Each structure stands twice: as structure tokens, then as C-alpha cells.
């Protein structure tokens, strides 16, 4: 298994390389530059700035320099937040985004999983319809509606929670953002688990388990849930990578200093290094979680082999 993991990680290097290369050149081909916004800049100052950030060099040379620095773990200086390196910016924001994302993920698994299982066991009951309604709501209502409405209701009207802001990992400040992040995931997990459990409960081998008088606990947990977890796991891989690397909407509306915002801001400001830094982080997360999914899959299903 270890050998398989190592081989998979090595195999991901070309993928990462392609993503980084594509992102680098696409970013540079786009019109505009990092210093365009500041119109008052004298041409000489502009030239000096360009020089300081090596923007006057040919593109392929900049690319080579960037790759070289990246290998040493240096993501370069930010073009816009000029007192910080990209590493520092991401280093400060990533733990916050990850904390919120991890809480949301946990919540989604616990709540979504429980709801889905209950709904499947009580198919076509009131509980089932309630879960379906909640799931439809969670999937349909976009987070940029949920976030301000939650903030309005709990922060402004009821005044029981802060409408936004960040005071360290304080539960009061985390609650609304985590709920916003978790809601669609709860919905999707509940739906997936419900569907997979229904299929599992109807399957021949569960019929066998019931025909042999195994207690309901064994039938549900051992013979249904394990197989039903597979689709959820495949969904959660990419979803977890996205959750842990921050959400631009949630961070903007609740004023949270995570890294979710950097991507959009960076792209609009042509903060090349910041965008590249975010791309690298996201890509690494995606690769790691896809690997985790495959390992979990193989651990659960003996028919899957490490090839």
C-alpha cells in the first residue's frame, strides 16, 4: 500500500506540472499587469517596479525562475500586498480556511450521514420526505444567499451572533460561516447516502443477511453502510479539497481572513504570484485527497486492487 501511495504521488507530479504551466502562461497571456491600477505611476517608476519583480525578463525565463523557486518552496513575493511574500499570506490564511472547512466537513458527515441513513431506513415516511426537502433546500439555495440571510437573521435581527468578523478561532464567529459551508455538503451527503443505502438494502446480499436472521444492527452497519459509503467517499475527495482551501463567498461576506479570497482578488489584480500560489495549494490538496479516496476505496472494497 505504501508503495502504491508513493507511486501515485510521483505520478501526480506531471499533473501538477501541467496545471502550474497552464496557469502560469494563461495568467500572463491575459491583458493587463499588476501595476496597471496605479495610474499615477511614472513610467520610470513602473519600469523600476517591473524590473524589481523581473517582469522585464522574457516570459520563459520568468517561468524557469518561478519553477526553480517553487522547487525550493519559495512562492515568491506578492505583487500587490507588497510587504508580504505569497508564502506568508497563504501561511496566515490557510489554517483559518482549513479550520472552517474541516468543521464544515465534519458537520456534513455527521449530520448528512445520519439524515441519509434514517431516510433510507424509513423510506417514504414523513421523516424521509423531510430529509429530502432539507436536501433539496441545501442543494438549491446558493451560499451567497444563505450567508447574508444567516448574517441578517442571527446577526442583525436577533443579534445573538456576530454578523461577521474574525476574532481568532472563537466559536461564536465560526458558527455561521461553518453552517453556510456545511449546508450544501450536508444536503449532498444525505442524498448520496440515502440513495446508496436504499440500493444496498435492496441488494441480494442484504437479503441474505436478513434471511439468516442477523440482527438489524449487523444488517445495516456491516452489510449495508460499508458499501453505501463508497459513493460518498468518491464525492468527498474533491469536495474536501475545495472546502479546506476556503470559499470566496463565505470569507467575503463574513469578513474572514482565509485564502479563499486571494484567488479572485489575485486574478483581478494580476497578482501573478498570489494566483499561482493559490493554484498550487489547491492542486496539491486535490491530488492528496484523490489519493486518500483511492486508498480508502481499496481498504473498503476488496475487489479494488492497487495497480
Amino acid at each position: 500500500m505504501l508503495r502504491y501511495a508513493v507511486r501515485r504521488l510521483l505520478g501526480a507530479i506531471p499533473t501538477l506540472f501541467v496545471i502550474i504551466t497552464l496557469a502560469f502562461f494563461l495568467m500572463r497571456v491575459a491583458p493587463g499587469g499588476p501595476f496597471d491600477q496605479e495610474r499615477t505611476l511614472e513610467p520610470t517608476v513602473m519600469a523600476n517596479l517591473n524590473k524589481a519583480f523581473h517582469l522585464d525578463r522574457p516570459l520563459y525565463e520568468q517561468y524557469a525562475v518561478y519553477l526553480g523557486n517553487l522547487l525550493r518552496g519559495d512562492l515568491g513575493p506578492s505583487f500587490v500586498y507588497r510587504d508580504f511574500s505569497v508564502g506568508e499570506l497563504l501561511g496566515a490564511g490557510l489554517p483559518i480556511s482549513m479550520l472552517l472547512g474541516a468543521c464544515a466537513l465534519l458537520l456534513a458527515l455527521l449530520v448528512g450521514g445520519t439524515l441519509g441513513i434514517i431516510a433510507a431506513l424509513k423510506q417514504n415516511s414523513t421523516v424521509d420526505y423531510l430529509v429530502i426537502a432539507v436536501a433539496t433546500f441545501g442543494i438549491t439555495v446558493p451560499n451567497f444567499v444563505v450567508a447574508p440571510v444567516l448574517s441578517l437573521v442571527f446577526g442583525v435581527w436577533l443579534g445573538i451572533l456576530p454578523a461577521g468578523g474574525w476574532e481568532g478561532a472563537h466559536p461564536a464567529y465560526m458558527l455561521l460561516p461553518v453552517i453556510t459551508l456545511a449546508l450544501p455538503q450536508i444536503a449532498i451527503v444525505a442524498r448520496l447516502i440515502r440513495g446508496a443505502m436504499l440500493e444496498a438494502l435492496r441488494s441480494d446480499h442484504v437479503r441474505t443477511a436478513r434471511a439468516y436472521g442477523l440482527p438489524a444492527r449487523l444488517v445495516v452497519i456491516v452489510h449495508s453502510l460499508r458499501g453505501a459509503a463508497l459513493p460518498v467517499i468518491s464525492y468527498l475527495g474533491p469536495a474536501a479539497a475545495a472546502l479546506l482551501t476556503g470559499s470566496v463567498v463565505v470569507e467575503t461576506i463574513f469578513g474572514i481572513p482565509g485564502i479563499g479570497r486571494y484567488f479572485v482578488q489575485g486574478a483581478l489584480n494580476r497578482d501573478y504570484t498570489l494566483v499561482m500560489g493559490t493554484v498550487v495549494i489547491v492542486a496539491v490538496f486535490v491530488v492528496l485527497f484523490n489519493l486518500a479516496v483511492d486508498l480508502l476505496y481499496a481498504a473498503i472494497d476488496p475487489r479494488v486492487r492497487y495497480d
Partner: protein
Amino acid sequence: MTGPGPILTLRDLAITFDTPDGDVEAVTGVDLDVFANENVAVVGESGSGKSQIMMAAMGLLAVNGRATGSVRYRGTELLGMAPRALNRIRGAKIAMIFQEPMTSLDPLYPIGRQIAEPLMVHSRLSPRAARKRVLELLDLVQLPDAARRLGAYPHELSGGQRQRVMIAMALANEPDILIADEPTTALDVTIQAEILALLARLKARLGMAILFITHDLKIVEAIADRVVVMRAGAVVEAGPTQRIFASPRADYTRMLLAAEPTGTKAPPPAEAETLLTARDVGVTYRSGGGLLGRSAHTIEAVKSVDLDLKRGQTLGIVGESGSGKSTLGRALVGLGHADGAIRFRGATINALSPRALRPFRRDLQMVFQDPYGSLSPRMTVGEIVTEGLLVHERGLSARERGRRADEALAEVGLEARIKNRFPHEFSGGQRQRIAIARALILKPEIIVLDEPTSALDSSVQKQIIALLRAVQAEHQLAYVFISHDLAVVRALADTVMVMKAGEVVEAGPTEAIYGAPKTAYTRRLIAAAFDLGSVLTGAAEPA
């Protein structure tokens, strides 16, 4: 353990399914008794409700199913029993084995654990004691190399081995009754004989009742003490096996017994022209191997087959699953590539381009096994039947095509007015008639019939066979009849080819092959098909 009364009693059992189109009564008023140590068979065609009565008895009906009436085990009412109480009987006193041993075992757990689970639940064995008992059971069902197989997963075993595992699981708690729901239907005939022999041996040794649910009268005749015939959810007739087979009282039972295909086919006259010859035909598949050239390995599905087909001849190809018989059949009509030489009307058709092959196709038609899959679901029957005319008789007007469709449908015994209906509105037998009409409309010389009756109930099968015979006589057709069912092939074919693992084991006139088979494999096939009873009695005595 054995008392005088029945151990399982069904009284006035009715089952209703609640569907979007209203309630469907699947079973009505079924009475049934099973006495200790008895072997009872419930026989019926698909949709007769024979499986559902046992599902209802075991509390395994689908969520939309309701059972009324009474099911008693040694006097205890099972219907409506609390799950906890029911679980003390299921798997302990009454055990069940199913048709699909692959899907009936949990793919995620080793077989040792799955057999041990009911032991630990019902007999409260420790894991250690359970393991010991599992090994005994696996020896009992003669799973080779049992100790090493404890950790094996279901997908690592063959179909027959999986069914042995299921049987071991059923016997684990020494039940009073074993319910066997079509336990051999998914298996090849030789494996089927082995499993039936195993069951007969175990029954003699352990002394339990077996309730056997099947559509196969041959099995019933070989193993059952008593027979219950079901049709459309009700019991038609019940009685001792010998009496039922000797003097059936109900028309339906008589019809079932007569459904076995009879008669033989005379070979075509010696001077009949040879239509198709195949020399050294092989088919290989490449599996795996992606863009990056990962290890691709080749599978030889058909190896070096020779055959000749004359006008009016029927060549039967028999063999078990994976023998390559269907692949060969498809190659003969130019579906899929093949090596060697298949010569038809002076051309080597397997070397032709699709375009060059097209004119030959009208004379080489095919009918497939699955009447549900071989008709395009969104086309009307008329469109399906006349599609070949669009290719081979392009000048035809729509009116003329309609007339031809009427003719072809009439020939297969269907009415012309069904032309605007869709395939899903017909039964399996009707669909197979439509498929035959599609082939006939082109007036071909050769039709390859790939298990055309295997998906059909035996009474329908008999009608289709009669149809095929009539059509052949009418048009002097040559058939290649592919089947795993040796009885059907004997009735239809004048020449037989036995295939195994892609190779022809033996070939010759039907009477010669069936009368004096040369190879052990053919002998086994024939014994399993025609003389199941003696195969089983032979096996019942420990060798």
C-alpha cells in the same frame, strides 16, 4: 426433532404489491405443507409467484409487498412476527439459498466471516469455535482447500464454489428446512449436477426438509418427493412426484410436462448445396492496454474452428458459458472480426470491408438471446421489422414496406395491426417473434440463432421452436442454433458441435453425438441434461 405434523404450514397465503399503477395481487390463496425430512418442489414459470411465497414466509418481501393468511413454523405464526423473534428462526431453523450466489454473498467480506456470522448470532459460538465449525462446514460442502479459502472474497471463487459457500452457510445451524430458490439456474449444467448431488447427499446425511423452488421439471423429477405446481399466483396442482409426472390432473401441468421439445430433424439431402464454409476460424480479444500501452493481454475466445453449412441444415452448437459458441456465431454473420476464412457465396466475408460486406448481410441474419435487448426501444414494431428493407431494398415505397411487414408478421404468427406498437408492450415470446420477423423479411439463406429460447418460459419455448421449424421448412433455411440446452438442440439440429473453452470438442450428426459421445466432457453434458436422476443417485452414495 421430527414430529408427526408438518413443520412448515402455509394457509391461504396471499401477497399484494402496492405499485404506482395500483395494487397487484401476486399470490392468492396458497396452501402448502412441508413435513420433516421431505423434499418438496414448487414449480412454475416466471411470474407464478413461486419465489414470493417463500420471501413472504421469511419476512423478506420488498417494502411495497404485503402478505396475508398464515405461515406457521412448528405451530408458530411467522407472518407479522416481531423482527427480533423472527430472527431467532431465520437462519437457525429455516435457512435459504438463492439463485445468484455472486450477488447473494456480500462482496466486501471474506467468506469465512460470512459463514461464521449466523453461527455466532444463533449458536453463540466464540469466534474461535465458529472458525473451527466453518472449516468443518466447508469440508462438508467439499470446497477444495477450505483452510486457505477462509479469507477469500466471493469474487475470487467460481460460481459453483460460491453456491457451495452459500450451502455451508445454510447448514451452519443445522436447520430443519432448507429453502432453495432456483439454486442452480445461474450455473452451467455440469456444475448444476454437482450442486444437486451435493444437496441430495447432505439431505441424506443431515436429515432436513428441502423446499426446492424451480422452473426446471427435470430437476423436480430427479429430486422431489412431492410437487406443487403454481401458475399466476395460485396452486394448480399438488401431489407426489411420481403421480404428477405419470398422470397430471390439471391442463396446465400437462402443458408444462409436454413443453419439453420433442422430435428430431432429418438431415438435408446429400446433394444440398453448401452455403457457408469456415476454415480455421479464430477470434481473439485484446483486453486492457490503454494509451500508454499498459500490459494488454489477449483472450482466445474461439480457436481454429472448421464447419460447413448446407441449405436446409441445422447446425447445433452446444457448450457451457465461456465456451465461445456465441462469439463464433456472431463471427459467422460478420459481426466482429475473425481470423481464418469464412466463405459465403465465393467471398471470404471476414476479410471484407463493412461496405463490401453489406450486400451479403441480407442472406446472413441473426436472432439474439435477449428479446428485451435486441429490439430498439424507441422504434415501433413496424419500423423494427422493416429496417433491413431500408438497406437492402432501397427503392421500396413506404406502402410496399408496410405490406412486407404484414407478411413477415403473419408468418411469425403476429397480427399486422400491432405495427404501430412499441417493443415494451409485448411479452418475451412475442418479442422473439418480432425479432424472427425482422430476420425473415429479408428472405435470408442462413439465420444464426443465439440461444433464442433461453430467456423464455418452457411453454413459450416450445411454440418458438415450432415456429422455427415451420419457417425453415417453408424457406429451406440453414440454421446455426446456439444453445446450452442439449434437449432443445437434439430436437432442432441434424448436426451438432460441442464446444469447450473456444475449441470444438467433438462434432457430427446429432444421433451419433447423443447416442455415442466420444469425449468425457460430452458424456457429462449429456448425462446432466437427460439423466439427472441417475447422476444424483450415483452421487448420493459416497464415492
